[in-house]
């Protein structure tokens, strides 16, 4: 029997299956992603990088920065914080509820809280605990909110506030996710180091800025002019790109707690108990959001 056709069909359908699964289906799902509004702010995210930063991505690609630097913040879990937003009118009931939730809290301290709301009632709690706490406080006539806080070693290192999601790279070509961390993660490097001059010095001689760094110098991005070392346009563009790296906007798929101080209690609705994912942050109306996309 001639197995040739069978062999051809086997290879064809096996590869077609994989192609359907990992090329066509993902394209249908995330290939058509659109910018969306950030949670709690009427701002579209992501914004396209400015032109100079886009040229910088080209320098980043050509010199293989992504070979040593990832742009993926990972998170191991999310925990919940419970914020007391408004004490309501029934102070004794709220106090007893607070006492139940925070046995260590003295009554005087609690009363002081009422004048400086919002205050954190629970931190690092599981979703169910947070839910119960909110119910308890609402039962006492107070307003409370659950904040979702991403945690993980990358976040603890200060590499980002939340995990990286597909939407962060909507306008990048090529997407420089990176596959190794020979150097630190750069997903939010502009937050850590917003100083362009620092970046230029670091590119020219990394060991000056970071003792013991394993990064090679990129002197070919600079030139000597009248005894001065001046960055070439490539270096300027690369730094502009690095300064545009910021992926910490709170999104539906990666909720994030806004800074508690930003909340204006009067404008905040007590969140519904059921949908935790949607209830992450009180609307920071008026207050400048900390997570503005790069302009």
């Amino acid at each position, binding site marked *: 029997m*001639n197995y040739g056709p069978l062999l051809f069909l086997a*290879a064809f359908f096996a590869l077609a299956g994989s192609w359907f699964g990992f090329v066509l289906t993902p394209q249908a799902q995330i*290939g*058509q992603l659109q910018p969306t509004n950030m949670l709690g702010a009427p701002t579209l995210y992501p914004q396209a990088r400015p032109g100079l930063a886009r040229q910088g991505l080209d320098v980043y690609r050509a010199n293989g*920065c992504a070979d040593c630097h990832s742009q*993926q913040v990972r998170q191991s879990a999310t925990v919940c914080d419970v914020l007391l937003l408004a004490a309501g009118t029934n102070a004794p009931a709220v106090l007893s509820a607070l006492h139940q939730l925070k046995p260590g809290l003295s009554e005087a301290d609690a009363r002081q809280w009422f004048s400086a709301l919002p205050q954190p009632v629970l931190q690092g709690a599981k979703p169910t605990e947070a839910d119960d706490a909110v119910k308890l406080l609402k039962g006492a006539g107070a307003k409370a909110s659950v904040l979702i806080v991403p945690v993980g070693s990358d976040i603890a290192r200060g590499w980002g506030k939340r995990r990286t999601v597909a939407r962060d790279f909507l306008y990048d070509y090529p997407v420089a*996710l990176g*596959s190794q*961390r020979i150097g630190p993660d750069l997903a939010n490097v502009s937050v850590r180091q917003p100083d362009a001059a620092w970046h230029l010095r670091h590119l020219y001689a990394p060991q000056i800025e970071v003792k013991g760094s394993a990064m090679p110098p990129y002197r070919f991005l600079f030139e000597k002019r009248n005894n001065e070392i001046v960055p070439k346009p490539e270096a300027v563009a690369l730094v502009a790109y690095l300064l545009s790296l910021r992926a910490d906007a709170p999104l539906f798929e990666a909720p994030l707690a806004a800074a508690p101080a930003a909340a204006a209690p009067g404008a905040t609705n007590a969140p519904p108990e059921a949908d935790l994912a949607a209830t992450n942050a009180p609307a920071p109306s008026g207050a400048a959001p900390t997570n503005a996309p790069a302009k």
Partner: protein
Amino acid sequence: MNLRASSEPAAAASSGCDMPTSEIDASCRLPLLALLMGAAAWLVVASGFALISSIKFHSPGFLAGPAWLTYGRVHPAASSAFLYGFCLQSGMGVSLWLLARLGRTTLSQGWLVTMGAVLWNLGVTVGFWGILAGDRTGFEALDMPGYATPMVFLGSVLVGIQGALTFHQRREQRLYVSQWFLFAALFWFPWIYSTAQLLLVTFPVRGVMQSVIAWWYADNLRVVWLWLAGLGAVFYFVPKLARRQLQNRNLALSAFWAILLFGSWGGIPNSAPVPAWMPALSTVGTLLTTVALLAVGLSVWKTAGREGLARALQSDPPETPRQEEGKPVDSIEGLALRFVLFGVVSFLVAGFMRVLVSFPPVSNITDLTWFGPAMEHVNAYGFFAMAIFGAAYGIVPRLMGGEIPWPRLARAHFWLASVGVVLLAAPLAIAGVLQGLKLRNPDIAFLDVVKTTLPCLRVSTMGDLLMALGHVAFLANLAGLAVRFCRARAVSAFSALTLDLFKPAGAKP
């Protein structure tokens, strides 16, 4: 109808219609020489550049001056030269020879294959310089710039079509296991390469979709293609060189099906910023390739048997006496078998490493560390390259009708390559685990994490150096064989041409 199919590779000619093997070899000679010599040359180039990029990790200032020698260009240039210049090219060459031999037919239109090889090498050369000039695409395993693609693709199509035609024209209708693997590999590459090129370079998709397709491509190339082509050679050469029959053919075929069906579903890292079903599916697919690993291990173990192992371990090329006149390649067979069996062991190691890191608790540690490159090295160098070395030492002497010129060098090649791979991959794997564990502890400063990996990186540079030396030995042997063959041909052609000149004088050569 014969469901058994043949269980021995290229059994001795039994019927009248069979073609003498010398004729088959003659039809393969020029095309295969072009492919294998090109591959060996690229291998040397790749290992030289890999050595440079490896040194840069512990001495960042090393060759940091000119832009084209920066790590981010040298490294992709080395890996592209290795992957496209060596792996794919040598894999195609060995596949063609096996398809011709197993089908007992001459290679279809060898000159077109030679053309394909020339185009392929031109394309890889353009791509290689393109990367050094700063035109890399930025997608791992697909780094050669778009303008090199047409040549590479056309070259692969020319070679692939002739492979398919050779398969089609086979005189032996029954299929041997290797043919399943090799035919699928022939078919695989143009599809994945064209998909990746079109969707990543020509009409790029949006956002993270690029990474998804790049992962899909890299997995299909570096896992599925290398496994298919490499195992095709393994299942031919292990029985052939061990002088035994393939045991349990169905086991080998189940490996084929497992690779085909599950192997191509891997490659998406668990940490990837994509919807969770993709890494989950990828984990399941990778996990199921265990079937292939077990089947290959068992099948090769049974086929090689004690005799095969003894043959691989004992025979030292220089001392082994020729067993038969007219079969001058005997002395190298034990060494070739040793290469192939080393490849099979590495295949199992790489395969199980891959399964291991597909589990999220493990990948949380090993993702984005040195463990990934370690795994790639075990798979590409330890398995594929070693299997191809064995195959080349088995094939080229037959093609050229002569012995390996420097058997001692070939033996040294084995030791350099095998010790080199271990010294390259083992420290990187250890470094990866250490790095991953320390990265998970936010109290350890990042620079300290980098420092822990440095000793391991130094050792792996030693591995790179040994392997580079081994590759030079490989190239020297192949080139020596080719030069000897050409010189013999040239001498005989010259004497044939000049015969008339001397005849009147009565001189007889």
